[in-house]
């Protein structure tokens, strides 16, 4: 508390600053460097927590807590939620498309930062009269007093803003249903009319070793069928194709049995080929 | 003055304006009705203009007469001030006189092409005549305005209808087919617009500057020409030399573009070459006159010192315009462009006369504006008839026309002779006055300018010889002579040229006092003759009778 009043802080705080400061900067850098949005979000959350600690260190207890609860707890989670919605695995390449954008950004950012720091540097702010008496009656009470007296109008306006924002969010994301939902009968009729996929979609492949929704069933010619896995998985490219390896195994088995039987010198030796070869699977199937 | 009961000047500008709207409103099917309506409106305007000319009292001592004055934009001291001096009266009369002929000459220029599907939205004919009337209204009011701001507005607004007239309607006589002609036309129109717009904007800056100066020195800023002139005379308003020169240049540039003065002339040949000949007449005989007129009324009266400061340069430029325009006219292959360059040469004479700062020079310049309007109208309209017959603007496509169409050739020759200012026709008087006026102050320039008359003879006669004389060309063979409508257009113009050539007194009487007033504002005096002719008995020499009055003339 009293340490806050001095121009030079306690060494404890100094240590804390240097360690956490580095962490914060690192987090910030990760935020803008990471390929995947999820990682960015997480590192940003880290930075925010560090900032919360700094708030506390600066005597802004209420804000520190709010920072953790609201920001890190709510807003960042909102971010993560949206990221999930858009696709966690969707990684955008960091390759710059706009010509010279990156250099401009780097140069300008550098210059800007230098300017800010220079500004702070030559701003004559040496003595800190800490928050001793301001926080005397407790930080929260102090803030409350200010908010409901001096800044009450701003406070009200912010409230209005928040409500507007909430409504706005709903409006933007809400999808208006214009016509009543189709009954099952109508859907089926529609399907018939369009003449596509009248019966239910085929089930995913069921194999001896694999049995999961992300494994397509095989068509008679051994190629995997798209219809058998859900489009979402297809969208994300998370479909596991077994036909290839299983066929390869069949082939290997066959080969081995041939060797074991000792024959198979001279006559039509099936050429080694991957699942791409169309004939092999049929043979395999016949056996 | 007494006869303020009826706002004559406003009416003169309002009649064509109303006429323009009415004409534009005529339904598409009733083309002929629109034409007659336009013609009637222009004739009514002519009537009003004549009333102005008769109400105008040359002897009166106040500079402007028939004045009307109403506050318009109080905060900026902009007033709706109208008033005419002799020069304005003459030019208003010229404008009102020419428009009916322009309308008559362009009677069929805006008819939709044969086989064109009737379209009820797009009514070219109505538009054509409405635009012409609109131009007339604006020109008239800018001749009448004595408030700089009011003048500026209409000086600029004029560009809009002119732009559409140039770009929208062409004689179907382009050398390379219609769509090429269309591109050429739009090019010419845009060029015209940009050129004049630039000039106008520079002038606007000068106008604002003028307002600032007056506001700073007189307390309340004003645009009124008379107020400013009086204030300067009484010494309330004193412009710094630098300021005055800058403002003068700002004004003069706009007028020099409009006039046009070398080297700002290149828009004119394109515009006149591509537009139909009535529109070309409108450009050179009516609209451009606003430029030269404004030099007389605004440049000289607002900035006398700066005017006399800039005089040498301007005179040299005018001289260049005279010789240069004439030489280029000689080199042209296109009839209308030839006439355009001839006009450039003539505008050189006008500006020369204005800035010679002698009563002969400025009086001559004013007469020149009127006479050049009439003579160019005659020549250009006849040329238009000729072109419409053959469907080509190239001189080389003609030959021997006088054999098949003697009346057309004759009128063309008279127009040409007027252009080369043959004595007995009106332009001679004005040209000679300009030359005398220039010579009496700047002999060298006067002498060089006189070469212009030889060159004028050259390009006119070459044009006449190539088109009218010689063996009859095959395509020309079937050409028919002037029709009644065309004769009605040309004959009065020629009659007027002859009349003003023999008896210009009505015009000079109106103009002289105004010129005197202008000179008094600039405070310049005519140079005195070196010898005072004394009434020595001419020992038996003839002409005693004249000598007396000539002597008092010389005094």
């Amino acid at each position, binding site marked *: 508390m009293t340490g806050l009043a001095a121009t030079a802080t306690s060494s404890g705080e100094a240590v804390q600053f240097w360690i956490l400061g580095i962490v914060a900067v690192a987090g910030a850098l990760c935020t803008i460097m990471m390929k995947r949005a999820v990682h960015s979000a997480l590192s940003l959350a880290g930075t925010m927590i560090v900032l919360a600690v700094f708030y506390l260190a600066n005597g802004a207890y209420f804000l520190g807590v709010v920072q953790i609860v609201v920001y890190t707890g709510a807003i960042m989670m909102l971010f993560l939620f949206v990221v999930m919605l858009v696709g966690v695995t969707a990684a955008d390449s960091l390759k710059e498309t*706009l010509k010279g954008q990156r250099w401009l*950004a780097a140069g*300008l950012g550098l210059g800007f930062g230098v*300017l800010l720091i220079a*500004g702070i540097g*030559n701003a004559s702010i040496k003595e800190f009269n800490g928050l001793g008496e301001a926080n005397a009656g407790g930080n929260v009470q102090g803030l409350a007093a200010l908010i409901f007296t001096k800044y009450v109008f701003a406070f009200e306006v912010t409230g209005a803003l928040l409500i507007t924002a909430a409504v706005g969010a709903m409006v933007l994301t809400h999808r208006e249903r214009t016509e009543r939902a189709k009954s099952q009968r109508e859907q089926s009729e529609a399907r018939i009319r369009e003449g596509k996929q009248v019966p239910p979609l085929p089930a995913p492949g069921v194999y001896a070793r694999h049995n999961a929704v992300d494994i397509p069933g095989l068509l008679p010619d051994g190629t995997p069928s798209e219809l058998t896995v859900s489009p979402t998985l297809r969208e994300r490219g998370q479909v596991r194709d077994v036909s290839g390896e299983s066929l390869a195994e069949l082939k290997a088995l066959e080969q081995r049995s041939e060797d074991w039987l000792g024959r198979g010198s001279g006559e039509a030796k099936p050429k080694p080929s991957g699942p791409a070869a169309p004939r092999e699977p049929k043979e395999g199937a016949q056996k | 003055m007494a006869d303020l009961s009826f706002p004559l000047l406003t009416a003169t500008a309002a009649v064509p304006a109303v006429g323009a709207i009415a004409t534009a409103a005529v339904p598409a099917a009733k083309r002929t009705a629109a034409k007659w309506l336009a013609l009637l409106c222009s004739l009514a305007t002519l009537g009003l203009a004549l009333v102005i000319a008769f109400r105008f009292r040359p002897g009166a001592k106040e500079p402007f007469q028939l004045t009307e004055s109403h506050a318009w934009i109080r905060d900026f001291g902009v007033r709706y001030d109208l008033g005419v001096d002799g020069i304005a009266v003459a030019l208003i009369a010229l404008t009102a006189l020419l428009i009916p002929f322009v309308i008559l000459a362009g009677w069929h220029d805006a008819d939709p092409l044969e086989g064109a599907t009737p379209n009820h939205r797009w009514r070219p004919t109505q538009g054509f005549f409405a635009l012409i009337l609109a131009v007339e209204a604006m020109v008239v009011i800018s001749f009448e305005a004595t408030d700089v701001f009011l003048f500026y507005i209409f000086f600029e607004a004029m560009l809009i209808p002119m732009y559409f007239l140039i770009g929208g309607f062409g004689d179907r006589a382009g050398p390379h087919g219609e769509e090429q002609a269309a591109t050429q036309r739009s090019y010419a129109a845009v060029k015209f617009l940009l050129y004049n717009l630039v000039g106008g904007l520079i002038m606007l800056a000068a106008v604002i500057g003028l307002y600032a100066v007056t506001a700073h020195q007189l307390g309340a800023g004003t645009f009124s020409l008379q107020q400013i002139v009086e204030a300067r005379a009484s010494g309330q308003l004193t412009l710094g030399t630098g300021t005055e020169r800058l403002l003068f240049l700002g004004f003069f540039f706009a007028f020099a573009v409009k006039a046009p003065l*070398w080297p700002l*002339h*290149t828009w004119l040949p394109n515009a006149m070459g591509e537009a139909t000949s009535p529109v070309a007449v409108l450009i050179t005989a009516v609209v451009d006159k606003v430029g030269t007129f404004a030099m007389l009324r605004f440049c000289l009266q607002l900035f006398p010192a700066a005017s006399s400061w800039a005089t040498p340069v301007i005179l040299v430029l005018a001289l260049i315009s005279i010789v*240069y325009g004439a030489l*280029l006219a*000689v*080199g042209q292959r296109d009839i209308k462009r030839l006439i355009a360059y001839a006009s450039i040469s003539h505008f050189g004479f006008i500006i020369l006369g204005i800035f010679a700062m*002698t*009563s*002969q020079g400025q*009086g001559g310049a004013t007469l020149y504006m009127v006479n050049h309007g009439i003579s160019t109208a005659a020549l250009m309209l006849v040329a238009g008839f000729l072109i419409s017959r053959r469907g080509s603007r190239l001189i080389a496509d003609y030959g*021997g026309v006088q*054999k098949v169409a003697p009346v057309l050739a*004759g009128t063309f020759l008279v127009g040409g002779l007027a252009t080369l200012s*043959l*004595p*007995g026709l009106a332009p001679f008087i004005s040209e000679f*006055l300009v030359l*005398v006026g220039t*010579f009496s102050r700047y002999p060298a320039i006067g002498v060089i300018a*006189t070469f212009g*008359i*030889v060159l004028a*003879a*050259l390009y006119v*006669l070459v044009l006449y*010889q190539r088109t009218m*004389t*010689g*063996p*009859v060309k095959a395509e020309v063979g079937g050409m028919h002579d002037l029709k009644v409508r065309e004769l009605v257009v040309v004959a009065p113009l020629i009659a007027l040229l002859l009349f003003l050539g023999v008896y210009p*007194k009505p015009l*000079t009487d109106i103009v*002289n006092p105004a*010129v005197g007033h202008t000179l008094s504002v600039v405070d310049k005096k*005519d140079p005195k*003759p*070196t*010898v*005072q002719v*004394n009434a*020595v008995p*001419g*020992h*038996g*020499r003839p*002409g005693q*009778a*004249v*000598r007396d*009055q*000539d002597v008092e*003339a*010389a005094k």
Partner: protein
Amino acid sequence: MENLIALLVAAPLVGAALLLCGGRRLDRAGHWIGSLFAVASFAVAVVLFADMLGKSAEHRALHQHLFSWIPVGGFRADLAFQLDQLSMTFVLLITGVGSLIHIYSIGYMEHDERRRRFFGYLNLFLAAMLLLVLADNYLLLYVGWEGVGLASYLLIGFWQHKPSAATAAKKAFLVNRVGDMGLSIAIMLMFTTFGTFAFGPVLASTGATGEGRLTAIGLLLLLAACGKSAQVPLQSWLGDAMEGPTPVSALIHAATMVTAGVYLITRSGAIFNAAPDAQTAVVAVGAVTLLFGAIVGCAKDDIKKALAGSTMSQIGYMVLAAGLGPIGYAFAIMHLVTHGFFKAGLFLGAGSVMHGMNDEVDMRRYGGLRTHMPITFVTFGLGYLAIIGFPGLSGFFSKDKIIEAAFARGGTEGWVLGGAALLGAAITAFYMTRVMLMTFFGERRWDPEEVHPHESPKVMTIPMIVLAVGSVFAGGLFSINEAFVTWLEPVTSFAHGHSPVSAGAVTAATMVVLLIGVGIAWRMYGRKEVPAVAPRGSLLTRAARRDLLQDDFNHVVLVRGGEHLTRTLVYLDHSLVDGAVNGTAASMGGLSGRLRQLQTGFVRSYAVQMLGGAAVLVAATLLMRGV
């Protein structure tokens, strides 16, 4: 009485207006109307002349002031006429010869379907010419001056379908314009000097100003005179002017218009008297021209061109005389009048010959015509005798006086001028004899199958006869105790020249050179057979055929040079003046195109710009605080 003066001008003017605006319905009566108005004007002239003779010499000058023409400031031009002895002489000559030629043209133009217009132009010319000689100030004279130029333009180019005619007409007008430029500048100079340009005051107050200005005015007037009177260096148009119908050549390019220059110089005598240098220039021009014209006349085979050369040379005599000052003015005018008679007669004769020879003009295709067209032969012959100065005929008196006056100039100058005049007389005798012989003597060089030479109708011959009579007796009449000189003396103050050689000697010399000239011509064309096609001839001959090459000079220097100049200027106007403007426009377009590239539409590039702006702001604030 003076109110009649306007009538002189008005009559032919009305005639012209009628005929030119009358339209086809006047086609049949046109020529009669034209002639009527011409004759009417002549009648008025005679009345005025009679009235003038009735008065004493001092009060003969009449003046009529119609109205103030151009009053602007100190500049006062009046539409006013003055009729004094000088003008009277001209009026009589113009209207008289004019009327005769009108009548002649009735026959000559019979078969031309545009005859009405022809007479309209002729009337127009008469009006302009009368205005020229009746004007009481230089500006009005200038109007007439250009008016006759216009008339001659219209008449030379009357057969416009002939390109040669159209070109000749244009050339004539242009060359005249150069002269007119001189006149107009002279008027301006007068105005700035005297504040007026009316004859009276200007001529009365020449003493009041410096000689320099007067010399300038004089030279400018001389330039004008050269243009109108086809004097060197502006003589080139006259030869081509023969493209016009022959009556035109007779009236305008022989009798009247081309003498306007002499009138101008004589009228402005006071100025020239006060400016000796200008006078020297005048006599020089006169002397040069009279030799030039004579030499050209010797070489031409076209009868009209030969006569044109002689006209040039005769006017050279007049100008020479006029340049001699008071001792010459009267004789200049006198020779002008007699020349008007016999040269008009000669031209009409030539016209009549052409009329009979299907408009053949080449003298080498004539020959032996005297039997076929006797009247023409006689009248032409009388004119011939008159022009070579055969004793007793008009030419003798007038030309002899001029040669005398030339010697009387005194000093070497006198001898040079006199010698030139004498030489001119000899050459005149030579080429006129040549014309005579080639046309009427020798045996025929034309094909009787094609051409049937015949005498012209009465309406043509009568004017020729009248003119012949004039050319025989006029000179004699004028010289009876110097009637003509005393008549003109009040206007052109007269002084007797004191010749170093006696009058008798001069006359004798003239006779001698005359005989020499005739003799040479006789030897060349009378004795020998004239080849039907022109021999190549000596260098001088060939040069003379080409008007001593000055046309070629004009062509090379003026025409070609002018063409190149204009072509370059047209190019420059397009590429340089206009190019500058279009260049500005183009560069503007390019610049805006560049700037457009900044608007990529990518949010992030806008963000970059925003950050840049922010950085600038911060920097600015820091600097502010720094300062």
